[in-house]
Every structure is written in C-alpha cells, then in structure tokens.
C-alpha cells in the first residue's frame, strides 16, 4: 500500500513529508482511506450483485417480506466502533500535540513572527538575543515592511524578510502568526502545517523539520525526466534545468540552473527548441522546492501570496543568521 504514502517528489498525490509530526497525519489519512475503500468496495460488490440478481424479468416478482438485517446491523456497529477508535487513538492525540505541546525552552526553539498581508508574507527573526524588537505601524516603509523600531535595543539583531523564509532543520520552530488586514492562512504543505491568520489574533504554531530535510537534499531527490512531447510549460514553470542543453549547432539553449521561460509564450519556444535539438526528455528539478502559501481567500491576488522556504542545518542556519545581522548593521551604519 506504499502507493498511498507521500513521495520524494510533487505529483498527483501527497507531497513530500518533511516534519517530525507529519508522519502521523499521513498515517491517519492512509488508514482512513483504506477504511473508506473497504467500505465502498464492499458496498459496491453487494450493490452490483443486487442490480443483476434482482432485475425485473418475467417470472421474477419482488418479495414483500423485509429481509433480515442482521449483517448490516453488525457492519453498522463495526463502522461506529472504528470511527471512535480512529477519533480517540489517531486524531485526538495528534491534534493535542499539535495544539497543546509547544516546545519547551530547554529545547531551544526558534521563534519567528510571521506577518501576513495582502499579498505577501513577512518574517521577523528576533536574533540570538531571543527578544523581538518593538514594531510600530507608523514606521512601515518599503525598506522596513514590518515597521521595526530600530531605536529599540532589542532590534539590533532582528531581521526581516519578505516572502523569504529560512529555517533550521532538527530544531523546534515556533511561529507566531499575525494578520494585518484580512484573514490569511499559513500553509506549508511539505511540513503538514496549516493555520489561519486572523486579524486581531496572535496564533502560535510549532513544528520540527526532519534533520536531513535541507533544501539541498530535498532538491537532489526531486530531479525528474519530463517527456517533452506531453509536457506543458505550466507543469515545469517552477523547474530549472538539471544540466546544460545545447542545440544541434552547439549553442546552449538552456543552462543548468536556468528556468525554462518566464511565461507561456517563451516557455513553449524553449520546449520546441529542445525538441528540435533532438531531445525526447528534459531533466529538471524545482528551482525552489519548498514553499509557504496562503490557504484562505484574501483578495484578487490571493494565488500569488507565496514565500520561498529554505531549510538549512542548524549550524548553517546560525551562520546565515550571523551573516545577515552583520549585513544589516553595516547598511544601517552607512545610512547614518
């Protein structure tokens, strides 16, 4: 039954699962669907049998007396019992951990403030001091989108990014979710995380990314051959070439790491060029394999509200953070 589990690649079923709690969710989904399939096919067999055996034909009248319902009552009870087991054993405990067990301070969680607004995600890191600098709506500008008060000493090591989120693997992460204008919903499909962002509320969620689920590793596992004859640009618009491709004259059509066109027209052109060069398939991998998306209708550009997620090992994350803090303070000094 492995076909029901998630894959290392995106496709027509569950996306890759990269968090420590996500396996239990996938397991519940799997168990439920097995149950649903058994019920449906069981019913289906009985149903088809009736349609054939009891069709109207000469010499075959219906029976007035009701059939005894013993078997169906048994199945009924079994269904109820199963549902209760699933509820109490597989759903409630998972939900309880998801909601009631925030990471303890001793686990050194990373806390990130996530501000959602039409139509972008803003990430506010508190830096090594663990304290978030004050924010003020009056200070919001194009370079200071969360309105961070740089005069607050706690802000010295704070970082802010738009649509760009870096997270460490193997370390508990706590996100505090804010909404500035309308209801949004933070959704990270590959982490099995989803939480509405409601204006006026500050909602925490927590999860831990599997230790080996760095972006580099995940990317490697997603290299895939796409048959050029049957692939539309829509399917591969977020993918980059895994190697160089040249045409018959030896000129490069597409370099390794390049996207195949930015829109439908240019994408179609490149695909055609690749076919003309004699390629049957093209080897691609997603340019940015992990995304954070908005799951609640928030306006006409709701579909564009997405952030790139980059996962690093815990050490790599510390190094990245230190680098960013240095960069920011250098820039600030230059401004003064």
């Amino acid at each position, binding site marked *: 039954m492995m076909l029901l589990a998630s894959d290392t690649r995106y496709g027509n*079923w569950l996306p890759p699962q990269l968090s420590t709690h996500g396996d239990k969710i996938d397991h519940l989904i799997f168990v439920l669907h097995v149950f649903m399939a058994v019920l449906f096919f069981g019913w289906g067999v009985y*149903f088809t049998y009736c349609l054939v055996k009891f069709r109207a034909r000469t010499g075959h009248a219906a029976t*007035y007396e009701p059939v005894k319902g013993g078997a169906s009552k048994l199945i009924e009870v079994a269904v109820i019992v199963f549902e209760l087991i699933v509820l109490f054993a597989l759903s*409630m405990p998972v939900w309880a951990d998801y909601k009631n067990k925030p990471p303890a301070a001793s686990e050194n969680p990373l806390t990130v403030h996530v501000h959602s607004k039409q139509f972008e995600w803003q990430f506010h890191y508190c830096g090594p001091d663990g304290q978030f600098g004050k924010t003020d709506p009056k200070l919001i500008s194009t370079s200071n989108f969360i309105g961070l008060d740089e005069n607050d000493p706690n802000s010295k090591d704070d970082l802010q990014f738009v649509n760009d989120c870096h997270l460490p693997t193997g370390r508990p992460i706590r996100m505090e979710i804010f909404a500035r204008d309308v*209801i949004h919903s933070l959704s990270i499909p590959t982490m099995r995380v*989803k939480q*509405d962002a409601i204006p006026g509320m500050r909602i925490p969620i927590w999860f831990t990314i599997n230790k080996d689920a760095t972006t580099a590793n995940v990317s490697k596992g997603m290299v895939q051959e796409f048959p050029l004859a049957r692939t539309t640009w829509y*399917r591969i618009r977020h993918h980059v070439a895994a190697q160089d491709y040249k045409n018959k004259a030896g000129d490069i059509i597409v370099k390794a790491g390049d996207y195949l066109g930015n829109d439908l027209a240019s994408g179609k052109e490149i695909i055609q060029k690749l076919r003309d060069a004699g390629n049957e398939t093209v080897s691609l991998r997603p340019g940015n394999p992990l995304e954070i998306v908005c799951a609640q209708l928030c306006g*006409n550009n709701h579909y564009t509200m997405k952030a790139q997620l980059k996962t690093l090992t815990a050490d790599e994350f510390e190094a990245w953070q230190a680098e960013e803090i240095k960069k920011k303070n250098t820039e600030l000094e230059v401004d003064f």
Partner: protein
Amino acid sequence: MSGAHAAHSHAGHDHGHDHSHGHELPFWRKYIFSVDHKVIGVQYTITSLLFLLFGFALMWVMRFQLAYPGQPIPLIGKMLGASLVDSTGVLIGNGYNAFGAMHGTIMVFLGIVPLAVGGFGNYVLPLQIGAPDMAFPRLNMMSYWVYLPGGLIMLASFFTRDGAAQSGWTSYPPLSVVNIGGQTWWLIGMVFLITSSLLGSVNFIVTTVQLRVKGLSFFRLPFFVWAQLVTSFLLLLAFPPLEAAAVMQLMDRVAGTSFFMPGGLIITDVVQNQYSGGGSPVLWQHLFWFLAHPEVYVLILPGMGIIAEVIANNTRKPLWGYKALVYSAIFLGFMSFIVWAHHMFMTGMGTTLSTFFQFTTMVISVPSIIILTCFIISLWGASIRYTVPMLFALSFLPMFAIGGLTGLPLGLTASDIHLHDTYYVIGHFHYVVAPGTIFAMFAGIYYWFPKVTGRTMSSLLGKIHWFFSFIFINGVFMPMFFQGMAGILRRQYDQSYQLHGASAQGLSLMASWSAWCLGLAQIPFIINFFYSAFAGKKVGNNPWEATTLEWSAPSPPPHGNFATVPVAQCGPYEYSVPGRKTDFLPQNPALEA
C-alpha cells in the same frame, strides 16, 4: 380518479380548471401571481433550473482559466465586462473570484434549495398528503415573489463597475467588508432569500401536520414528506442567525460598524482609523456556519426523499427500514445544529472545542450511513425496473457514498490539517451535491413530469442524458480528491503558480474537459424537457403504477387537486402484497383498478 375528466394540459404548465368557483381567473392571476401550489411549484422549478444553468456556465469559464491559465477565453472573452476580463479577454483575478463566489451562492441558494424545496416540495407535498393546497396559499405566492427579486438583486451586481461579490460564498470578513464589488448587493439579496425561505418553511410544517387526510398517520407518510418536514425545521431555525449576521455585515460595510472588524487593521499600509475596532472575524464564521451546516442537510434531505419514492416504486417492494429512515432523518436534523465548527478547525481552536465538534461530526455520520444502508438493502429481493428515474436514483447511491465517506478525513482535525481548504473539500461536497442531490433532482423531474404535464418524457433521451452525465460528472470531481491530496488549494486563480499545484496541472485539464462535456450532456435533457411538455406521449393518472396519493389525482391535477377528498388505507409502499392481482396496493382505495 384515473383520467375520467382529465383536464387539458397546455404548455407544460398546470393550470387546470377552476371547478369549484365557476369563473376563470385572468391570466396574470392564474399563471403569474397564482396562489395554487402547483403553479408556484412550476415557477420555482423553471426559475431554479435557469439559475442552475447560469451557475454552471460561470464554472465553464472558470474551468477554462484553470485548465489554461492566463489565456484569453474563447468566443466570449472580449465580451465580458472590465470587472471580469482584461483587454485581451483573459479572466482577471477579481473576475475569477467573482465567478467563484457567485457560483457557490447561485447553486446553493438560488438553485438547489428553491428546486428541492420550492419546486418539488411545493408541487408534490400537498398532493402526497391529500390536501387541496398548502395551508397558506397566499404566503406561498409571496415566498416565490420574494425569492425571485432576491436572486435578481444578486445577479444585478455583475453589471456594476466593480462586479459581483468576490469574497467566496462564505463571505469571511474583514475581506468581505473591505472588498470592492457587489458584496452589499449579495447581503441584501440574502435577506430576501432568507425571508422567502422562512415563509416557505412555516407553510410546509403547518401543511404537513394539519392537512393530512383521514388515515394518513405520521408513520404512513411517504419518506419524501418526512424529508421535507425535517428540512423545513432546519430552514426555520438555522437561517435566522445568518440573517442577523448578514445585517451585521451590512452595517459594517455601509454604516462603518465594527462587528467583525478587529482594532488596528492596516490595509495596503494605511491604518484603518475609521473603524472603532473591537469586533471579531471569528464571530461571522460561527454565525455563518451555524446556518451553513444545517444548510447542507437541507441540500441533501429532499433529494433523499425523492430517491426513496423512486426506489420503492421501481423495486416493486416496500422500502426496507422505513422507521429507521424516519428516525435517522429526525436525528440528522437535531445533530446538524451541533457540528458547525468543524468548518473552523484551523481558526486557532483549542482541544476542548475541537474534541466536541469532532465527536458530534463522527456521530452525525451514523444516520447518513443508516439512510444509505436502508436504500441499498431495499434492493434485496426486489424486481428492479431500470426506468430513467431509477437510473438516476441508483447512481445517486454510490455517488453519495463517495461524498459521505470523503467527509471522514475532513471531519477529523489531524487529517484536516493537510486537507482543509484544498480541492479535497471541493471534491467532497460536490460529490454529495452534484452527482448526489442534482441526480436526485433529475430523478424527480423524470418521475413526476407525467403528473405535472400529463405527458411522459422520452426514455431514450433520458438514458443518453443519464449515461453521459454520470461519466462526465465523475470526470470532473474524482480528480479533485487527488488534487487535494497533492495540496492544491481552493480559490486559486492560477493553480500552477504554486509548485505543488503545477505538478498536478494535468488533473485540472481532465476536470475542465469533463465539465464542458458534462454541459453538452445536458442538451438531450433540455430538448426532452421542452419537447415532451408539448408533444410527449399522453398518459393517465398513474403511469408508473405507484402507490402514493399524488397518483390518484388526474395528470395534471386541477385546482383543488382531488375531485373527492382521498383517504389513506395503508402505508405508502405497499408493493407486491401477496394475494393481489396487481403488484401494488395504492394508499387511496379510489385508485384501485
């Protein structure tokens, strides 16, 4: 009596002759502002079918954008207004959202409920209980004439500068309060529709309780009547909170109140000081879903009622578990009031509240399963006639089963984390409403058409309609479960914008083509419906050899329905009673051959 003085039937509409009063009413009082439940039933039916077709058409356009994102809509692209498309005829984000919000609203409130309750309920219920009309005929007329303007007000918003409402049929604030577009018209339209519904439900309940003929005790009522009765209670008690909420949202939009607006909102970097704040967006969700959950049972129960009638008639044996069916329907009604927050699991709900609602959601699946089981067991020992209504009724069963079963992963919070707001949800509820309820509606139309018009519909066209509808409707909605598993979210103008969405783009293509073919598959039905109304084969009272009281009235019934007041001598499904010449024992002894 069987056709002894069958009234003329003109133009597919019932008009009958005004026997009891000896003078003819003018045209406008006989067909337009009629108080006869049969005329009103036909008005509701035609109007709602037109709305359903319109709502479906909106989806054809949306599905083009989903299959071919960013490409100009063929044929009609450039003709749609500036609130919907850009200069090259490509659907824009606002337009997509407007179509989406209106598709849901039109299908649910202007299409299915008026058809199931206003159409079928109005026409069939008084006949099935032997009544001459509804308890309040003038109130009945008012119900229709409040529904129609309400619907037109909602549609009129398409012609405004900023287009129709575009915050989802769920209209969540703050978006719905601050959004451009016809949300205000939507809210006003809702007030009309809810009023129409309330007037109707009072009528149905009083009629069912007080106007049953002699011998028709509650447990001799056809299941169709029970289904309509429970539905009416749901409409009566669940709609008012939405009316209150609609008034509050209207106040937020028009009078600047902050019922649903929390303090400190910053929209496009401008602090919204004009609101007092202090409101709660979650309050709207509670009020909305308090109605909208019972509403889904309003959508399915009348359909189940129709399926019951068609199955009993075409199996030629009594329905199995009549009492279980009735008790399940009543229990379903009660339970439907205490499950609503399973639509809100992701709002930051704690474990206590979510445990309560998960538990009630699990419990409410039980009566649904019982009802489905009773229908399926009714097939055992039957003599199944594969008439067109029966084809629709039989295919309803596995389709409703899929819809119901896929509710399970959504009703449990842990699995809902992944599936909430994805296409899995869309697949789930469409399976219940589209190949579920709509198939039941078709079954009912083919079944009662002879009673309404005195003519039958073509069986061949009906079978073609059924076959292709069944194939393509599965083609539209089955891919959605896979899309949902892949993580594709709802209300996405361009599903391929997100990586996981792009990877499952092929499924969108399949759903879109199936939807367009499904549209084509309705052509035989439309032709059949209108042609047969004028030129179909004429029949008498009881072409289906059925037992319930409506079949003892002429086809079509005159004003006042029955020449002599019927009595009920037995239960509603006395088929194949041993020792009789015919294989059915009608409830009205006057119908016995």
